[in-house]
């Protein structure tokens, strides 16, 4: 028993490494302050669910993490690299789109509406970016794509076009497409919100299996039972703030903050 634990220790140390750090991020949209100085850290191999009522700023925060939207103030770091900007003499300067694209390649993102490319087959959707961005050879990219499709249970759909797949299948393809870039971290923006209720489990099962394989993830979701089952960390947002965070088991069963309690009571 002692022996096993001593082997487990180095693994635990690696997992203490902070992979994502959100440092005092502010975002203004019109006259509305969407993010009000958000701080957040996600360690390597950790899965964090972002919960909270609509309009709390969850999706905006997630979109700042790969600079699909730029924070107005504050910096997001992935693996200690500032995202969307460059530090020079204590100042931060924006990167241009070209430089940004290199950073985004290592951050996988899955959207509420899947956003598969409708003019490409499932296979083309998956191999395009690895070939064009990573410079993978076609044979290798195809092999990888088939493996990924098999892992999300869609081995037979490679040559279909997205519109012939169900929502759950499309979202699983979208996950495979993001994974094909071998990302350091995966961002999920309400991955099941556009799905029929009886299809959500298809997608949630895939996310669960990613967690088991140690993928670092941030998941914006309304599925509170899923957040609990996933057993990772949870951060609850309201009105542009993170009002409560911690292990799912604690936050979801014994919430400290009044608004968390209200939100959970309402959502369940």
């Amino acid at each position, binding site marked *: 028993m002692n022996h096993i634990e001593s082997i487990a220790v180095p693994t635990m140390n690696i997992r203490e490494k902070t992979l994502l750090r959100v440092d005092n991020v502010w975002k203004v949209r019109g006259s509305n302050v969407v993010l009000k100085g958000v701080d957040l850290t996600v360690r390597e191999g950790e899965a964090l669910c972002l919960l909270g009522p609509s309009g709390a700023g969850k999706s905006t925060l997630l979109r700042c993490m790969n600079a699909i939207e730029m924070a107005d103030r504050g910096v997001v770091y992935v693996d200690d690299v500032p995202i969307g900007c460059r530090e020079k003499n204590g100042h931060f300067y924006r990167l241009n789109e070209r430089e940004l694209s*290199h950073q*985004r390649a290592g951050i996988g*993102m899955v959207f509420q*509406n899947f956003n598969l*490319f409708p*003019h490409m087959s499932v296979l083309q959707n998956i191999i395009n970016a690895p070939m064009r*961005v990573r410079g993978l050879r076609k044979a290798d990219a195809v092999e990888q794509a088939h493996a990924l499709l098999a892992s999300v249970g869609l081995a037979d759909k490679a*040559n279909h076009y997205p519109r012939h797949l169900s929502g759950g299948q499309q979202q699983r393809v979208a996950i495979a497409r993001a994974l094909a870039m071998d990302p350091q971290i995966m961002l999920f923006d309400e991955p099941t919100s556009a799905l029929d209720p009886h299809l959500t489990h298809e997608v949630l099962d895939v996310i669960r299996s990613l967690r088991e394989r140690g993928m670092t993830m941030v998941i914006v979701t309304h599925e509170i039972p899923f957040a609990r089952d996933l057993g990772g960390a949870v951060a609850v947002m309201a009105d542009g703030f993170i009002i409560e965070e911690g292990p799912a088991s604690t936050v979801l069963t014994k919430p400290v903050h009044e608004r968390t309690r209200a939100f959970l009571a309402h959502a369940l």
Partner: protein
Amino acid sequence: MVASSTLLDMEFGDRARAAPRMLSPGNGGRWIAIGLIGLAVAWVVYQILVNPGFQWPVVADFMLDPTVLEGVGMTIKLTILVMMIGMVIGVPIAVMNVSQSRLLKLCGGAFIWFFRGVPPLVQLVFWYNLASLFPDLMLGIPFGGPKFFSVSSTDAISSFGAAMLGLGLVEAAYMAEIVRGGLVAVDPGQVEASKALGHGPFQTLRMVILPQAMKVIIPPTGNQFIGALKFTSLASVVALGELMHSVELVYSNNFQIVPLLIVAALWYVIMVSILTVGQHFLERHYSRGFRQKTMGAGA
């Protein structure tokens, strides 16, 4: 209709038989319309066959006349060049117009405002007479700086050059608007997905936005192509030997005006028909993934 009603009677019997049937109403008006249209068609055919003014033998003689064929060739060449200029300039102008930069938007907007606003006939004659504004075209530093290269305008801008520029720039302005319509029709989520995968801005445009915009761009572009083909006849005013100018040359010699205009009309119709077929196949190609029954090769 008959087949389905017997099927119902056979399988479901009395209950189906009792349900009222939908009959088509009598349509007397249709027969009157068919009669009137038939009469009009008959009159036109009669005129075509009997009226000596049509001079069908002359038409037949000149259909394959070398001057006319040269004109056809020039019309095709000019149409293709005009459309190429239209797309090569129009696509960047459209991209400028949907960009975030106000400066680029302003430049693109000004281009479209000017070249769409001035009639092509005016522009043709203008480019043809550019020499009176700038006797020499040169490359160098403006406002009295050194000149690296200089050519006289009358040499540089031939009839063909004037036609190409005049019609090409007008075409570019229209194409820019068509392409812009296609670009804004693409779901913004597609751009986000492409960015999130690490595609650069140019890759996003080429691999994600344009292929999807094509579905919207192709049908009006086919229309523009057909329009450009006919607009090349305007170039006859700057004495360019395209189809219209060729038949003008012929009928100013032999005074067979109507038969030669028929020759021109027939050639235009033939070329437009070919373009229409081409457009059909292009549209089919670019609706990949959007059509109801499309399945991948292995499906």
